[in-house]
């Protein structure tokens, strides 16, 4: 803004802001949030996002079940979560207002699209009087904006129908918010031109609406202030914004290249994992083959078949999909072939909450197969970490010839954050070490189950290799030679060997963040709760308390130092988005009386909520008589 007009709004500096865009699922709120995120990322703020949308594609318009929202937290320092409560709520209709306004703290900014506040729409969600008129919103700073009317007016000259013109109102809202927070706008205009390359009329309309929203903020006097959130001091490097699902897909491509293996993804569409299939299907030029199978079972089956042939076999799923794949994963355990299985956890049981997050597949991942069928389990702690976790999972799968399960979840999958782009040429490479010659003690035969002394891994001999023809299958094999064996002692030995192989996988020690070194309470988490736990711990420390935080990325095997870490603290608290699954494992493995804090509401923990939980446990810790 170069004008020095006296009506120029005051600019207030903020260190952090949380904005929530909420509207009907047809209003394009996810796209609006995505664009604001991109603008914010390119500006250099640290950020974290939380999309929240219904499972139905288009629930009846204007109803509460149809409300879709996107929350973005951005700051001039490193942040850990998408934020608890919005500072600004954009409500595109009465349903969006009703579903979200309770989260807006007093004094918060509310921007309302008044065009949708008709009697009919108000009645649909149970408002007998418009909340804009009855004084119920007076604790907020309310901006009433007739977004549809203003958008229509801005697009009058385009010749678009009234209906088509109004559809661009989300870009009007984006333009207005971009003005309020001084976001760079070139990226969004470029994006819209590319997205609607085949419909230049729609590209023009969206850009016009976006500019109209921006101009509306500039020219009306109803907005007295704008806000400035300075860039965050991130570590040097080149950054981009990334979601967990995209990072998983990139990790898979990178892992294939690191091992010189063609990538084969066998997958069946399921929310919220489908985006990994979509992303990978675009990267054929990088040696990726994607197979949309007839069902979940065929997806993992084809991936296993490809692995038998020497490819990096990958399957992706969520919810009930992981149940359907169980039998084939069990076969992969028996075959001892590398296989990457990605489970983007969602609310269960059964179909459960397809678009909401949960961490309740841990015990299924550990034990959900017939027989003793151990496999390694890893969990990413943030969207960007998904890339690293896949590289690590593939390294383990190939080194130890085993299926590996990666437990992502809905909040990591769809959430996004700035990601320091790695140097592709510096990524560690690995040799798949295919068998090429007979290995029997006399050198005359190939024994498919003769193990490596260090890793206990068996050789990976792919079809086409002369002299190594062999048969494998789900029946128990004789140790070494690999032929079918029903011998009782052999089965006992093979069962223990399979377990020892997984237990012996080298995983890094868990690191403990205990800045003062005198904490008595350790908070231990896994997976996507890293952000909220860290944010909660930060708040508690700011209040002057000592608290230690540790986070697990390896769930099986657990880090070798974990038992010692658990015993080092007077009290151990494990927050999980399930009913205490990791706590159960820790109690069983280490005989430590860990405390659980659990919630399965389909949404990530809030920092404020965890702060209170931590304070509560700190208070109990200092109470006399505890752990005497």
């Amino acid at each position, binding site marked *: 803004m170069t004008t020095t007009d006296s009506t120029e709004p005051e600019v207030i500096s903020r260190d952090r802001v949380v904005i929530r865009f909420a509207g009907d699922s047809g209003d394009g709120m996810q796209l609006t949030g995505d664009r604001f995120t991109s603008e914010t*990322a390119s500006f250099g703020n640290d950020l974290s996002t939380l999309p929240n949308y219904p499972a139905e594609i288009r629930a009846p318009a204007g109803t509460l079940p149809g409300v879709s929202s996107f929350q973005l937290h951005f700051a001039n320092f490193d942040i850990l979560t998408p934020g608890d409560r919005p500072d600004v709520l954009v409500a595109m209709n009465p349903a969006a207002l009703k579903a979200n306004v309770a989260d807006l703290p007093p004094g918060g900014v509310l921007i309302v699209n008044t065009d949708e506040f008709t009697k009919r729409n108000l009645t649909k969600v149970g408002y007998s009087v418009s909340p804009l008129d009855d004084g119920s919103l007076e604790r907020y700073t309310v901006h009433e904006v007739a977004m549809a009317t203003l958008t229509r007016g801005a697009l009058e000259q385009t010749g678009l129908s009234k209906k088509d013109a109004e559809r661009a109102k989300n870009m009007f809202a984006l333009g207005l918010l971009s003005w309020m927070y001084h976001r760079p706008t070139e990226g969004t205009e470029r994006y819209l031109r590319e997205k609607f390359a085949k419909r230049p009329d729609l590209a023009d309309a969206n850009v016009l609406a976006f500019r109209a929203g921006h101009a509306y903020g500039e020219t009306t006097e109803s907005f007295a202030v704008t806000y400035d959130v300075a860039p965050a001091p991130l570590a040097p490097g080149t950054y981009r914004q990334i979601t967990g699902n995209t990072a998983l897909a990139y990790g898979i491509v990178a892992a294939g290249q690191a091992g010189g293996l063609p990538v084969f993804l066998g997958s069946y569409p399921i929310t919220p994992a489908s985006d990994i299939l979509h992303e990978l299907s675009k990267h054929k*030029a990088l040696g990726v083959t994607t197979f949309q199978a007839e069902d979940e079972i065929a997806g993992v089956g084809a991936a296993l078949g490809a692995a038998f042939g020497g490819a990096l076999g990958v399957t992706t799923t969520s919810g009930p999909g992981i149940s359907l794949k169980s039998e084939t994963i069990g076969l992969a355990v028996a075959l001892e072939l590398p296989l990457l299985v990605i489970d983007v956890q969602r609310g269960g049981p059964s179909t459960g909450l397809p678009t909401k997050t949960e961490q309740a597949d841990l015990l299924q991942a550990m034990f959900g197969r017939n027989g003793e069928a151990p496999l390694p389990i890893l969990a990413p702690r943030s969207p960007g970490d998904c890339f690293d976790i896949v590289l690590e999972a593939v390294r383990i799968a190939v080194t130890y010839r085993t299926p590996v399960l990666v437990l992502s979840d809905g909040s990591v999958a769809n959430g996004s954050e700035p990601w320091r782009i790695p*140097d592709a040429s510096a990524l560690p490479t690995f040799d798949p070490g295919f068998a090429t010659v007979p290995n029997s003690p006399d050198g005359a035969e190939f024994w498919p189950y003769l193990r490596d002394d260090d890793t206990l891994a068996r050789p990976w001999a792919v*079809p*086409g290799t002369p002299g190594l*023809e062999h048969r494998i*299958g789900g*029946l128990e094999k004789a140790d070494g030679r690999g032929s079918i064996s029903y011998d009782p002692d052999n089965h006992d030995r093979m069962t223990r060997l399979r377990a020892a192989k997984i237990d012996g996988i080298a995983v890094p020690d868990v690191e403990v963040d205990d800045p003062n070194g005198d904490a008595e309470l350790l908070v231990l988490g896994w997976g996507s709760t890293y952000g909220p736990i860290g944010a909660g711990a930060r708040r508690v420390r700011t209040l002057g308390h000592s608290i230690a935080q540790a986070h697990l990325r390896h769930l099986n095997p657990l880090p070798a130092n974990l038992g010692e870490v658990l015993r080092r603290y007077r009290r151990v608290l494990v927050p999980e988005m399930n009913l205490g699954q990791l706590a159960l494992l820790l109690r069983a493995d280490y005989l430590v009386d860990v405390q659980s804090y659990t919630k399965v509401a389909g949404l990530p923990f809030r920092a404020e909520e965890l702060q209170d939980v931590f304070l509560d446990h700190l208070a109990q810790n200092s109470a006399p008589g505890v752990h005497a």
Partner: protein
Amino acid sequence: MTALEPDLTDLGLPSIGGLHGVPTTGAKQTAKDFTSDQEVRWCPGCGDYAVLAAVRSFLPTLGIRRENTVFVSGIGCSSRFPYYLNTYGMHSIHGRAPAIATGLAVTRPDLSVWVVTGDGDALSIGGNHLIHALRRNVNLKILLFNNRIYGLTKGQYSPTSEEGKVTKSTPMGSVDHPFNPISVALGAEATFVGRALDSDRKSLTAVLQEAAAHRGTALVEIFQDCPIFNDGSFDVLRKGDEAASRVIPLTHGEPIRFGPTGDDGLGTYAVVQEGFGLRVAKADEVEAEQIVVHDVRSHELAFALSRLSDQDLTHTVTGIFHNVDRVTYDDATRAQVQHARDRVRSNGSSGLQTLLNGRDTWTVVG
């Protein structure tokens, strides 16, 4: 919107056969080379022995390298098949062999991939994978051993058992209506469908040869006797005049005649068209032009022929029902990957780093 990149309408058909891309060997191979050291453990008298012997002596005739041959099976008696062949093999899980073989075939064009399955494995628990493999036309050869009974679980009726079958699980007779595997395959858009009898090595080998030469999914139904739980189930098709009057062998381009040899040197029975379907008639009671001439390219004829076969085996059509060229899923998938690579190469931009960078980046200077 429909669009297909690149143009996948041809991909070398029909000149490239089922074994195109599989390395060949000049070395002389015998059945013994394809025999593993594992003791065969089927019941005495099982029809699987005859099929195994036929396959062991047939494989060397293909001239491909043994190490480039893979047999994938599901679960059931017949699914032990891979253990007895000295090729690469996988004995997988119940019903899923076509899915597993699909992943292998798509990623490895240098392999000849065979699926061994049974009536329960392919048509009951694995029905979904079978129909989708056929629809996609993956370059797989599927040998469906049909003994119309569950053997490995000790004698329950199967999805091909005739109605009223009395078994351990159906003491009052089964009330299920069975599948006709040939009709199922044709309904699932199969490009190659054949049938043979376990004990008829010559006809079985002929069908296997055509199947191997076919580029795409070939389904070969093999009637196979289970001497323990469904003994003699196909005996009426094996010997003598009765068998001759039941079995209707097909030869492409020839009038469909069968039964004891008549005065003109051909079978005394003929297949003629009636309404939308076919019926069996005495050859000397119909005009020559009424007799159907077999054409493996006709989907309609193949389906009508499949309907001639009855549950009680009164008429049983054998040989190759259907054989047409259609682009295979695996060839098309690989062509898309290659096309994407070529396009990127000509653009001069590619690589992992470009992917990781994406479009919008910003740099933080230390």
